[in-house]
């Protein structure tokens, strides 16, 4: 296991931000940590890198206890915690140099240039970071995380501020790093991002780990079949009572398996342009598991 927490709990005053979380993340996976705002994702990530101290429970990262062994663990961890941050009066490259020079085991100039290249900032100039767009800051933050070629990448909302092309590039970058052996753990509230990138997911809700699973295992069939046809009325005629939804040229049928349904429609002479088994989306799973985020306050 690259990350292993046992009954990890963090209380800020009366608020329990993380509540008895026991999470195991194996080496080599792409892990997505999901959950609404305020569900404890960021606090969990902060505890993993020793910024926030646990109230109780234990943490092991790369096989060593945190934060006791932070000096040995953190050089092998690249982290982006709650958005990038940089000294605004310095250029991006100067930022990386200073950060690199601040601790032991320097990556060096060549590695800084390579990291900037990796995140698409190879042509960066002397402009101060103050003048960067949100997307550029995000890329710089990821370059900082990549600097020491870490075994574990912990990224909190890594695609924040990136445009669709930037998101696509970042997904490719993280996939290729993962294939080269880096374990990628990202937290996000963007389900599509996690769905497109991750192999395993964990879902946090009000400080608890509500679910921990392979992504594929979550996407079970719902028992409904989606039929696309130029003749929706024909389908309804054949399968009256089993049609649960009808919109335009799409009809959703329940209670028939896809093979039987296909044969039935062909025999009935209904033209079919598409027939797919409906699977649960990550969104459905997460919405079933979690309450609303703590940014929503309703009248009691």
């Amino acid at each position: 296991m690259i990350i292993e927490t046992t009954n990890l709990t963090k209380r800020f005053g009366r608020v329990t931000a993380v509540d008895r979380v026991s999470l195991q993340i194996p080496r080599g996976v792409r892990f997505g940590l999901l959950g609404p705002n305020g569900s404890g994702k960021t606090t969990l990530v902060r505890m993993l890198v020793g910024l926030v101290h646990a109230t109780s429970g234990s943490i092991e990262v790369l096989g060593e206890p945190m934060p006791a062994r932070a000096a040995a663990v953190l050089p092998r961890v690249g982290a982006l915690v709650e958005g990038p941050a940089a000294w605004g009066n310095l250029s991006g490259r100067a930022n990386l140099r200073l950060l690199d020079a601040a601790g032991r085991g320097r990556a060096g100039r060549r590695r800084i240039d390579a990291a900037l290249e990796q995140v698409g900032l190879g042509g960066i100039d002397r402009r101060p970071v103050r003048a960067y767009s949100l997307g550029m800051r995000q890329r710089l933050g990821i370059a900082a995380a990549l600097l020491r070629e870490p075994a574990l990448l912990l990224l909190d909302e890594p695609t924040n501020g990136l445009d669709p092309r930037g998101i696509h590039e970042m997904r490719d970058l993280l996939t290729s790093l993962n294939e080269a052996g880096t374990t990628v753990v990202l937290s996000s509230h963007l389900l599509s991002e996690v769905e497109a990138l991750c192999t395993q997911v964990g879902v946090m809700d009000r400080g608890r780990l509500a679910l921990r699973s392979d992504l594929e295992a979550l996407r079970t069939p719902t028992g409904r079949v989606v039929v696309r046809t130029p003749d929706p009325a024909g389908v309804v005629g054949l399968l009256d009572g089993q049609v649960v939804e009808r919109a335009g040229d799409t009809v959703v049928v329940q209670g028939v398996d896809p093979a039987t349904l296909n044969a039935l429609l062909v025999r009935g002479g209904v033209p079919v342009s598409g027939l797919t088994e409906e699977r649960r989306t990550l969104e459905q799973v997460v919405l079933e598991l979690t309450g609303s985020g703590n940014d929503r306050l309703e009248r009691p």
Partner: protein
Amino acid sequence: MIGTELRLMVRKRRVWLCWTLLCALPTLVAVLLATTRLAPPPGRGGAFLSAVVSNGQIFPAAALALVIPIFLPITVAIVAGDTVAGEAAAGTLRYLLVRPVGRLRLLVAKLVSVAAFVLLAVVFVTVVSYVVGVLAFGFGPDASLGGGGTIPSLSGVSLTPADVVFRTAVTVGYLGLCMLALGAVGIFFSTLTDSPLAATLGVLAFVVASAALQPLDAAAAIEQYLPTAHWLDWIDLFRDPILWTNVRGGALVQLGYVAVFFGAAWANFATKDVTT
């Protein structure tokens, strides 16, 4: 980390602005004195100011006496208050800590950078005011007569230039220590909050509180432990012979402040949750 910290400091515009303004105030006073020739009578105005008009070489001491009560503490409050809280507010604190930089190392680097700031501030004021003083008031009456430009001490005995250099160097070190004590207070406040402004104002409140207690007879028992009580003790260095008692006592109190407040900063920061 110390190298990083120093490089970060010299690239901050506000640091250079502080140094510039610290040198500008004595320069302005020199220009006014030189154009009007209206020196305050002995005993009024800043220390040494009455002697300056007759000999520019004493002006560094006068300049230090000008900036020490308010101006220098304000700049120290700004720089020291920003140390940890500024990084926290900008978010760079969390990236330094996961780099990883040990929390004690980070605080030590901050203390060293504050020390470098105050020392350079005092040195700049001294050097600039020496140049300005000599340009505006000359080397004194003796110089024109070939007397080597001796400088009057506060006791009336003339001091040789070498003696003045020695006394000025000790003054620079002593004031640097006084301001470092205030800097340690600032670093402590800076670990308590994520707002650099709050930490800076806290330091200023600390200075004001100390200065308010200082003249009270009721506070006589603690007077010698107040940080501001020793800020003008270096003037004894310009008496002949040098009166070391107050300077030595003051230095010990200031060292005590550095130790206590730096220790408090460490105690608070070592286990602090970094949530910015």
